[in-house]
């Protein structure tokens, strides 16, 4: 390994204007002096932006859940869980490997019993998961954010409920946090087992067919009835309905969703029918975040119609031109099976073909979970969760504690409890909340801090590179490999015009770059441009139809963005780390999705 290493956590310099950022995050998320001895990497895949104080919960809770599943439930032999630290608003993580071979052996016995139980009963347990997660979503939707009136409703008295509505503030807020925690436990319940089956097949393919592109493995296992495609499919249906109802003229590129909705309202019965169809599609299919569910401000389609309405004009146009926009699932399934059969046929022996069949079979069994869980967890549930927290923010704003509902996201969740207690007391006593004086300066300061931290260029990793990152379970849990680290270390050897990432979707195109730092600006994308962005989220799928290629700072070949890009037959390079920093809107690019290389032509 090279002598080069990444900066140590203790060597990071303070960002001017961001003094005091530490108070935004829990004490246990701060780098300690002894952390200099360990290797950390920036989880830019999930946390591409500065984490606001409340959103710290999206690292705290997922890591309590995923580690519990690998370390304590399923007893993965070579790895416990993940530790995380936040510095300058960015989340760094490290895995805790199990290095003692005797310990690995002990853990293996339990792993075989426990993981074996899940694998052997996968379909039944997964069906149960589906019910559990939908029940959780129903639970979060049912959480009541109470209204505090002059008097509690009479029914509270005549029903002898026995507690006043200010109590519900605490209970309902706790319930949101508790449900969010539970959701993440369910999210990671099947995750590492699913990835394990995938990695087994992936490694086999890579050994048998070293030239095979990463995406080919995903293509052989891809499901056809993929929940993540549903939002896009719903949009296409709405576009078709607009054409049927003779409303197509209202959907033109660049129009404001609010104006389109108003115009629809003036189109009589046809407009009303379309609006009703929109409402029906929204729940649940518009509960897709424009991000990946880790930031409160990555709003869903349901919260902000910009993304779906940016896609509709093109779909309307295509349908008017007689194009069939439905996914050709039969053809895709045939193609998937043909590819798998051909690779199988290229193997040397019946023995190998037998192993291939087992691994592919297991992989296809677990893949529906891998493909669909994000919709239920990161999108549908999390959209509802942030909506509830925003409602508490609105209550705090109504009570004068905060200036605006979204300011609640600049408080840590334990601080929100404090502010709610303030409201509960003031309402009970007939006095006044004291929070305005306390919280409003804090919110203002944290907004400045977030702004200042957003200019910080986070190193991809910190600390000395460990000798081996080769354990497959650690790699899988961590999401990086020795090659990734080498690429980060070697990036400085490339000339300034080369940006490297993962080859996520094949093909080579040239075009003009459109750099979007804020996912909410996605409506700016124009036909034929190359999208360059920090992260591509599944909900961006619809705009993929009009771009020539996609380049992202983060993401892997299994990311939904990569899957969607392949579906659209569009080149994509993901996980470049630095594309948005090095490419400017208007640059001419060549995107080589075969090799994972982006060249800035000028």
């Amino acid at each position, binding site marked *: 390994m090279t002598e080069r290493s990444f900066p140590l956590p203790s060597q990071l310099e303070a960002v001017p204007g961001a003094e005091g950022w530490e108070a935004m995050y829990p004490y246990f998320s701060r780098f300690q002096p002894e952390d200099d001895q360990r290797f950390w990497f920036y989880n830019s895949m999930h946390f591409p932006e500065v984490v606001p104080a409340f959103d710290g919960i999206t690292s705290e809770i997922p890591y309590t859940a995923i580690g519990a599943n690998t370390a304590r439930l399923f007893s993965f032999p070579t790895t416990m869980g993940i530790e995380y630290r936040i510095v300058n608003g960015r989340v760094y993580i490290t895995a805790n490997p199990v290095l003692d071979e005797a310990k690995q052996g002990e853990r293996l016995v339990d792993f075989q019993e426990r993981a074996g139980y899940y694998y052997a009963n996968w379909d039944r347990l997964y069906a149960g998961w589906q019910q559990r997660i939908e029940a959780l979503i129903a639970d979060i939707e049912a959480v009541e954010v109470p209204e505090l009136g002059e008097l509690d409703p009479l029914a509270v008295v005549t029903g002898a409920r026995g507690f006043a509505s200010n109590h519900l503030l605490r209970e309902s807020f706790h319930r949101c946090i508790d449900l969010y925690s539970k959701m993440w436990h369910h999210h990671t319940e099947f995750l590492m087992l699913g990835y394990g089956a995938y990695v087994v097949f992936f490694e086999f393919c890579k050994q048998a067919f070293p*030239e095979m592109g990463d995406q080919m493995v995903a293509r052989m296992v891809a499901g056809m009835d993929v929940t993540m495609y549903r939002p896009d499919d719903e949009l296409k249906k709405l576009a078709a309905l607009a054409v049927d109802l003779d409303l197509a003229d209202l959907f033109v590129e660049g129009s404001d969703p609010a104006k389109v909705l108003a115009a629809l309202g003036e189109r009589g019965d046809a407009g009303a029918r379309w609006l009703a169809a929109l409402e029906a599609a929204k729940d649940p299919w518009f509960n897709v975040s424009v991000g990946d569910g880790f930031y409160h401000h990555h709003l869903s389609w349901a919260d902000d119609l910009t993304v779906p309405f940016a896609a509709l004009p093109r779909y309307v146009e295509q349908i008017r031109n007689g194009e069939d926009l439905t996914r050709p699932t039969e053809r895709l399934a045939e193609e998937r099976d043909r590819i798998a059969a051909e690779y199988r046929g290229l193997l040397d022996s019946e023995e190998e073909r037998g*192993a291939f069949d087992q691994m592919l079979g297991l992989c296809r069994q677990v893949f529906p979970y891998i493909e669909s869980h994000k919709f239920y967890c990161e999108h549908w549930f999390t959209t509802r969760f942030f909506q509830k927290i925003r409602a508490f923010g609105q209550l705090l704003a109504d009570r004068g504690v905060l200036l605006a509902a979204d300011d609640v996201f600049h408080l840590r969740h334990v601080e929100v409890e404090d502010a709610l207690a303030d409201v509960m007391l003031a309402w009970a006593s007939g006095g006044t909340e004291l929070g305005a004086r306390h919280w409003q300066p804090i919110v203002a300061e944290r907004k400045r801090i977030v702004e200042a931290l957003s200019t910080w260029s986070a190193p991809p990793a910190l600390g000395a590179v460990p000798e081996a990152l080769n354990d497959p379970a650690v790699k899988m849990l961590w999401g990086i490999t020795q090659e990734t680290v080498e690429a980060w270390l070697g990036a400085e050897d490339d000339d300034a015009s080369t940006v490297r990432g993962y080859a996520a979707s094949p093909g080579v195109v040239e075009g003009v770059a459109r750099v979007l730092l804020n996912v909410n600006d996605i409506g700016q994308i124009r036909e034929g441009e190359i999208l360059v962005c920090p992260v591509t989220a599944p909900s961006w799928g619809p705009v993929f139809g009009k771009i020539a290629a996609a380049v992202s700072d983060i993401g892997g070949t299994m990311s939904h963005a990569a899957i969607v890009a392949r579906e659209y037959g569009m080149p994509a390079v993901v996980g470049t780390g630095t594309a948005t920093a090095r490419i400017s809107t208007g640059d001419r690019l060549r995107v080589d999705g075969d090799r994972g290389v982006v060249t800035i032509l000028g």
Partner: protein
Amino acid sequence: MTSTVPVLHFRDVGLGDVATVGGKGASLGELLRAGIRVPTGFAVTTAAFRLAVEHLTVDGVPIPARVAALDPADAPALAAACAELRAVVESAPLPAEVAAAVTAAYAALCEECGDASQPVAVRSSATSEDSAEASFAGLQDTYLWVRGADSVLEHVRRCWASLYSVESVTYRLRRGIPETDLGMAVVVQRMVGARSSGVMFTRSPLSGDKSVVAIDASWGLGSAVVSGDVTPDSFVVSKVTGEMKRNVATKTRWHRPDPSGSGVVETDVPGEMQDRPSLSDAEIAELVAIARRVEAHYGCPQDIEWAVGETAPAGENVFLLQSRPETVWAAKDAARRAAPADRPFDHVFNLLGGARPSEGRPS
């Protein structure tokens, strides 16, 4: 059975005729049988070799005995003896029946091609060459752009004589290959005026991956690619999806027929051609299709030489010059075998299980 006729047309031979027409000749005949386009030609058989060479002597000692008596460790004596042997084989007059048969076959080839002095390639085709077991590759000679019956005869003798090069003799002596079994056929094949040529493997030469066809291509004759005189274009095409990794090189040198009409000259590629791909996508697709047919025909990965003709129309201009089993990776295949497990998810335990308890484990 080994045929006794001195000359056989490609169309009359197949893989079973290695003993008569050598590996190259048999392979070309077999390719024709498989419906693959190869430049027409004939083989001067091992029977002709025996008729011409067997009776020759050096200082009264028959050639096989003379070779068998040599010491491969005594380099100066070996070199002197080989020079003498080659001179005898190259200069001895041909038996009339062999000369007549070769002359007639060349005349027929000229008539078939419509050129009274059709240029041909004259290449040795050893009986033990081209086999996966013992590769003689590179130890014998190839002569390009040979014209006229007399020149063909001369080069046939040179091919025979190449068996007595220091390298060839040393190879046989060190491996204990008996001189009495020695047979050398010679292939005489229509010369293709190649616009582009090169080699292709029906698996990756770098990784052994059988799901791709790897093509190396450059301008002009294939000798530039084989000899390493040029860094060729590289095209790696997936057999499954047709996806291609394309690496177009700057090709500075090419081998071309000498304008005088015989022989080959090595010159610089004109500047405007150097960075252009030497194959069109359609030609690549045709080569891949041919490679897959040849591989399927033989039932094992192949190492193929090919050319794209200068004059033939598109769709009829891709020729194979030879195909032989790939040998480098074949030996490594056995090392990487996977086997089915009791239960599919046992594969997960094998990969993610870490160190195994020494007492064995449940399976």
